[in-house]
């Protein structure tokens, strides 16, 4: 199952030079990609060495993938390539406590001929503790760069799978020519998802099965122990499941349970209390009500780096009835509480980090800014991205802050990191510098592509859902000076085929696009308002149809054949 190649650097933190970019290349480099030096200095930048530290003007010297020095009077070796950092802000590179970056779910094995759904083989039932995230990971996956682009340099990758998916590993988001492996077998990834159509099929079955696997692992260890010392005993049955679970029952590695809700958090903690394993809670989305329970359990906490969508909030109308307004107020409060949760963790003194499993990298900075807007301190936010995960993952000696001797994992931004207009210009991972394009600052405007706002002109194919069924059509938007016009086709409600209507009130504000059109049905005119967010050619919106309610409306921009310059 395991790649022998990986054994080379497993079980201990590697000397980073061993796998660094330059050493991995031969002396002669036919690709021409080999950098002329691996010694860099970012001079005279504003450096934030760790959370809570004020920025100081300093130069950071990097060599062999390590930070060689931070200060103002450094002697730079001759081969140093300098980057003028005068306008740059340097932060320690982010660490994801858990991530699915670069992970591809392995194919489900074929069901055997004698398959019985009430007693399936472990591998088919999602019980695969022997699997390693390393085997499912590819550094070449485009998502790796997406995550690095927002500042992440190290991640604990979690395998995809069933209730006991396998072992996690810690990797660098570094060179394509390196294994990037820091530590293998760091935790056992588990969740409450049942297997479809077989035992265990639900959360209640998963909990029972987890107990059984755990208890029998312990018994198997005892039997093996006895078997190795006493002669004349029956051979104990050793399975891949029991072998791979032993690191958990012996307390060597924690179980990392995905627990999104309060009830799931309690369930994982109950199992922990019952069995006594080390616990990491990950993927937390709703947890404000159980902070004391989490604290008492001593479990490490990885919050999902995402904020709830605000579709329901945006769909609220001022002219709603009193009853609806009262209901709206509760949803609004639930939303406000949800986005302020991270600050409650800080208040409760629970050091937490983040999970990016299931999170779009492009939304991460916005989510962080929203959390900070809602009372999470910048210091705690930065700690959750650097020192806290380093400590949870056992990396404090090598990562998490900017210090001499630590890995050269850095973020170079154009402004204070969490500022709204701040952009990340370079990310340094393992001493390798990745450059990212920065755009000129956004200006407030209603249209145009050149000023950084999104492109909306073109043909959008959309689908909509309503009680009448799914609808499809084409939304055509043309640019007209500084404003937009266009038409929309829709399923004709009073017959078959498509009807066309002009669109009006087209407003593009940043990335949010809204417009209206009128549908004529049985002599009645119904005004339809559509409003939503445009992101990379997709339009995620809600349409409100007269007084009938609000429904989902999703569009995709059809690529134009000729480059639109």
């Amino acid at each position: 199952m395991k790649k022998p190649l990986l054994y080379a650097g497993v079980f201990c933190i590697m000397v980073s030079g061993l796998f660094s970019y330059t050493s991995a290349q031969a002396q002669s480099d036919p690709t021409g990609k080999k950098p002329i030096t691996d010694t860099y200095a970012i001079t005279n930048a504003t450096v934030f060495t760790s959370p809570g530290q004020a920025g100081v003007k300093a130069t950071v010297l990097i060599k062999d993938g390590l930070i060689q020095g931070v200060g103002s009077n450094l002697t730079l070796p001759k081969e140093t390539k300098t980057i003028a950092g005068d306008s740059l802000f340097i932060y320690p590179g982010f660490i994801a406590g858990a991530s699915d970056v670069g992970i591809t779910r392995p194919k489900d094995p074929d069901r055997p001929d004698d398959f019985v759904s009430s007693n399936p083989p472990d591998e088919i039932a999602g019980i695969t503790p022997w699997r390693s995230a390393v085997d499912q990971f590819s550094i070449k996956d485009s998502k790796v760069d997406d995550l690095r682009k927002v500042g992440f340099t190290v991640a604990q990758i979690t395998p995809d799978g069933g209730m006991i998916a396998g072992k996690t590993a810690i990797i660098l988001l570094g060179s394509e020519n390196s294994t990037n492996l820091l530590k293998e077998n760091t935790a056992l990834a588990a969740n409450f998802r049942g297997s479809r159509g077989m035992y265990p099929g639900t959360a209640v079955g998963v909990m029972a099965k987890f107990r059984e696997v755990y208890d029998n692992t312990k018994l198997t260890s005892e039997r093996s122990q006895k078997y190795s010392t006493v002669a004349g005993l029956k051979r104990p049955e050793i399975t891949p499941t029991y072998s791979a679970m032993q690191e958990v029952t012996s307390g060597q590695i924690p179980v990392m349970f995905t627990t999104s809700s309060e009830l799931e958090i309690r369930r994982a903690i109950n199992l922990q209390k019952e069995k006594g394993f080390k616990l990491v809670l990950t993927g937390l989305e709703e947890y404000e009500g159980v902070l004391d329970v989490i604290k008492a359990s001593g479990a490490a906490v990885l919050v999902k780096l995402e904020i709830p969508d605000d579709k329901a909030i945006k769909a609220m109308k001022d002219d709603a009835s009193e009853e609806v307004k009262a209901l709206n107020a509760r949803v609004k409060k639930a939303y406000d509480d949800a986005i302020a949760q991270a600050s409650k963790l800080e208040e409760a003194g629970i050091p937490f980090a983040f999970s990016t499993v299931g999170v779009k990298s492009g939304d991460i900075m916005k989510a962080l800014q929203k959390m900070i807007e809602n009372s999470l301190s910048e210091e705690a936010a930065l700690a959750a991205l650097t020192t806290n995960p380093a400590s949870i993952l056992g990396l404090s000696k090598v990562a998490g802050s900017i210090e001499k001797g630590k890995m050269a994992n850095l973020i170079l931004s154009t402004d204070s990191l969490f500022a709204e207009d701040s952009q990340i210009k370079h990310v340094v991972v393992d001493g390798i510098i990745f450059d990212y394009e920065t755009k000129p600052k956004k200006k407030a405007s209603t249209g145009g592509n050149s000023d950084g706002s999104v492109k909306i002109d073109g043909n959008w194919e959309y689908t909509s859902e309503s009680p009448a069924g799914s609808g499809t059509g084409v939304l055509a938007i043309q640019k007209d000076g500084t404003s937009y016009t266009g038409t929309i086709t829709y399923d004709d409600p009073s017959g078959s085929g498509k009807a066309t209507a002009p669109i009006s009130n087209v407003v593009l504000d940043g990335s949010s696009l809204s417009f209206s059109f009128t549908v004529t049905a049985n002599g009645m005119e119904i005004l339809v308002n559509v409003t939503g967010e445009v992101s990379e050619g997709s339009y995620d919106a809600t349409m409100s149809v007269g007084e009938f309610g609000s429904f989902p409306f999703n569009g995709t921009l059809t690529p134009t054949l000729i480059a639109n310059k």
Partner: protein
Amino acid sequence: MKKVNYFLAALLGLSIQFASAQVKKGSVLIKNATVLTVTEGTLENSDVLVQDGIIKKVGHNLNAPNGVTTIDATGKYLMPGIIDAHSHLGLDVVNEATSPIVAEVRMKDVVNPYEVGIYRALAGGVTISHAMHGSANVIGGQNATLKHRWGSTDPADIIMQEAPRTIKFALGENPTRVHGRGNGIQPRTRMGVEAILRNGFNEAIQYKKAWTEYNAASSQKGSTAMAPVHNERLQILSDILDGKIIIHCHSYRADEIYMLINVARDFGITKLVFQHTNEGFKVAPEIAEYTMGASVFADWWAYKFEVYYSTAYNAAILTENGAITSINSDDAELIRHLYHEAAKTQRYGGMTDEQALSMITINPAKQLGIADKVGSIEEGKQGDLVIFEGHPLSSYAVPQMTFVDGVKYFDIKEDADDQRMKVSPTEMVEPVMVYGGHDSRCMQDTEHLFETTESLFLLNQ
């Protein structure tokens, strides 16, 4: 002594966890009510004092101790909290439908104290419900007995920790449909159901024997005994055989009811309650003699083939034959007016007030093994009480206040429009699940198992 059986350790661990749960206890004096004690007659113009969750005194002219609220119930009726012996309220998962025996699963693992149905049940005077595993398996999971302490966020706080263990069994069409027709494994017929039961118990006997032998051997000096494989499923079946768990069995037909009685007698099981039991009236004397009775619907039937032979006189016939009989809901709506369901036994069968009220109070309490703690208004019992406007068996009855452990959880005068404890931040209106027909929640989470069956039906049409 190092070789402590670690099942025991696990059990001890559990009980420590349960004991640590903090449950609210209240004190209240209810004055001048018509007190329907259920077990000790009707007391006119009487007072009931609850202190720290326990009924301290039932009598006349009682004075409230310092700091205890007095409620004037002149002209109103006071009865013990209603107990529903068959419910699926407050559960995130109902069926682990994937194996004919899933005795190892615990509904206590998936209790959801946020379900608003719990509050609605309180509004119907129900203080305790039996949160059961579904009926997809011959031997289902272990149930949870819930006390409706609405507002608690810790599931452990709404579980009646002192209630004995109970487990779900199911006979007839549901388990044969899921496993036989749905998955092509035993049981496909009622004969298969019996075989599953007998094989399961026989394996449990072997299992217990293996562990007993191992424990005995391993306590000897220099023992080389190897521990058997741990099997929680068989351990639970063994606990049933040892009388530690009460069986609550979903059943309809007289023949299958009689079958289970025989299986139970063969294996020396006496803690057995039948659920639904629509044909119970045909085997009422046997149910009375060999079991802890039947928990039935007042008048609900004909939702599938095995439930056609039914009568609204079922509860009365069972009662007259000496079987402990309760009326249950199995439904989040019906649970709100179980007092009305109980009254139907007066229209169909001429039950007395006391007999009818027993069916939703002391009788279900007996079937859940908690009759020494709840189910009637007696000194020393837990302060679970309901104040009614109008006699609870009258068509005009309206519950006014509901108390659990002396704490008021429902008051019709303080009943706000929106009683939900939790609201989604992303949904304007929470998705509403509409299930068709009966057995909706009993068979929840099993829908996907019927895909094969349904496609076969379509092919044969």
